[in-house]
């Protein structure tokens, strides 16, 4: 085993991993920063982008991986298979890459219906085909009943980044406009309503979608995108805060500008949840120079996944630690903070 030094600036409060360590909030940042990243520290990993960007023989490759763990396996708007393809495609897309190839590793729990597995495989193939990528390698393991939630999927992907494209948190600049492509929190709420058996009359569907086509359209039109981030676990709030920290700047967000579906808003209010922190699977923010905002919005509006695109804020100034402030509808300014872990529904 290679000898490595664990760099632990923060003491871990927990002796065991708790669910909140995977919630996309501050505890997760702590776990990554103290246990996981230090073990492998290198400049490519430390860039903390959605994909690693690899320069190989003059070609820029994007490389990423993600594991998919979701209950239920089938939900309104998709299933674990579609999610496993789209999620990884989106991570590639966020570095400006055109996705090329995917891998697929399955961890199947004993007892899963073959018919369900077939349905999921078909859904993966359909999503890959629509994106024009091939699923070229994989692995299959079966674990005992009780050791998994039916099916876990890991996918990895590689894609090609055009020479001129240079998208990363480090390129965010003061004055950039922050644009969102779609409305918030639909994936997380659709899953929660399906999973928890909450009797809530709603037709909410997950926003699960492949964004790589849309991103390629934006790049092909010559848009100078400084940075992008898809807003998965931890939602918009976590995405913005991570980017503000990574780019050492202050983002100022106009709260009333945020598109939120009426059903999402109602469900959040009943459960005491904040849509800012809820997962999306077809939603991303992009940072463009203010001079290109109009061009970006016009391109987005022409695409089915960008019809609700709008400017939600701008990069105000540099800030050593990074900060996100909100201008509320009431005309008050407040900070936006990472949650500790997962959001927990409140008591009353």
């Amino acid at each position, binding site marked *: 085993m290679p000898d490595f030094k664990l760099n632990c600036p923060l003491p871990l*409060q*927990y*002796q*065991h*991993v*708790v*669910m*909140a360590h995977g919630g996309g909030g*501050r*505890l997760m940042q*702590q776990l990554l920063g103290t246990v996981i990243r230090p073990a492998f520290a290198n400049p490519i990993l430390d860039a903390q982008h959605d994909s690693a960007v690899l320069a190989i023989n003059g070609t820029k490759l994007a490389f990423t991986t993600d594991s998919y763990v979701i209950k239920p396996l089938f939900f309104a708007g998709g299933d674990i298979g579609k999610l496993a393809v789209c999620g990884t495609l989106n991570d590639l897309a966020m570095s400006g890459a055109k996705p090329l190839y995917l891998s697929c590793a399955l961890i199947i729990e004993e007892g899963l219906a073959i018919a369900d597995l077939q349905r999921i495989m078909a859904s993966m193939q359909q999503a890959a085909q629509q994106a024009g990528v091939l699923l070229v390698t994989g692995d299959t393991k079966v674990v005992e009943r009780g050791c998994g939630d039916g099916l876990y999927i890991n996918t990895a992907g590689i894609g090609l980044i055009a020479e001129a494209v240079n998208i990363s948190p480090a390129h965010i600049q003061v004055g950039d406009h922050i644009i969102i492509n779609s*409305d918030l929190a639909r994936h997380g709420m659709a899953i929660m309503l399906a999973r*928890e*058996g*909450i009797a809530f009359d709603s037709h909410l569907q997950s926003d699960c979608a492949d964004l790589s086509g849309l991103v390629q359209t934006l790049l092909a039109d010559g848009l100078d995108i400084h940075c992008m981030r898809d807003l998965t676990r931890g939602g918009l709030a976590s995405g913005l805060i991570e980017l503000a920290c990574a780019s050492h700047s202050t983002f100022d967000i106009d709260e009333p500008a945020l*598109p*939120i*579906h*009426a059903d*999402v*808003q109602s469900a959040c209010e009943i*459960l*005491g949840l904040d849509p800012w922190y809820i997962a999306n699977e077809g939603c991303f923010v992009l940072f463009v120079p203010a001079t290109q905002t109009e061009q970006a919005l016009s391109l987005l509006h022409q695409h089915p996944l960008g019809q609700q695109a709008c400017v939600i804020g701008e990069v105000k100034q540099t800030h050593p630690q990074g900060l996100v402030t909100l201008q*509320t*509808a*009431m*005309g*008050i*300014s*407040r*900070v936006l*903070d990472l*949650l*500790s*872990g997962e959001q*927990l*529904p*409140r*008591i*009353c």
Partner: protein
Amino acid sequence: MAQPNPYRDPATVRKLCQAIAAITTQPWRIMEVCGGQTHSIIKHGLDQLLPPEITLIHGPGCPVCVTSLSFIDKALAIAAQPEVIFCSFGDMLRVPGSQLDLLALKAQGADIRVVYSPLDALTLAQQNPNKQVVFFGVGFETTAPSTALAAYQAKQLQLKNFSLLIAHVRVPPVMRALLDAPNQQVQGFLGAGHVCAIMGYHEYLPISAHYGIPIVVTGFEPVDILQGLYLCIKQLETGKHCVENQYSRAVKEQGNAPAQALMQQVFQVVDRNWRGLGRIADSGLALNSDYAQWDAEQRFAVSTITTQEPLTCRSGEVLQGLLKPAQCLEFATRCTPEHPLGATMVSSEGACAAYYRYRR
């Protein structure tokens, strides 16, 4: 797209703030009782819109925050039993007991589940006849009726593998206790709208009369809270004191009679320890003798667990409105949502957590 919410309309908010400023001639200290109101005030920044004479004091109305350490330790002791499925509302899971919290116990293998209703726990008991299913009944009169319904149904079904750990508390006794405290500063109350939707507000009439204090039953949206404040300040400025109902779209004077009847059938009023506030007479609800066999404290023999509150946490002063969260030396230094010293930093409705999240 989200419909414009008239209770969050910025123009109405501005008008109400102007109206409040116009009638305010001297300093007033007003307590919002409910943690939901505190959260809304801090999230929307309403306190920053008020004239400087108005001080809002954040009250004890966060059920997570006031549940005593003893109850958390009882919950942990029960949940650690191998045969138990322990069910709780989500935000109780992070509250620190004297050694660990329910989330950490879950990570060590205990079967602890988040439910949205006590009836979900009842269903779990029916589905798992070989397990002991325990529901942690926490909250004010708002959540007590649904707990009562679960107990009632368990009795009807004669369910042997279901029991309840009841930590429910009542609002009127704590309002009296705050007003009886020697250093009390509250001059007016915004009453907790959701509690009153169940209990009505007839219980407040004698409090308002005895202490000579205005009580305005108030909702949770920005416009609700500002209307409540306006009514309260108007009473104070004109030297009146009575009970008014701002939240009439949800609250009637007599409240929800069937819910109250069910609570009377299942619960008895008892003295209870509040975190940070100490023992308050008649402030708790417990299962009455007809329901003793569904009482988890008896079934699991944990009623003897008593835990002293730690001295470092000043949440008691915060809950009494004597200290603003940011005035505490531990705030955002030793005490954070990841490492809360007290419950006011845990729940999203706790005053310290609200300040931490929106005000640093």
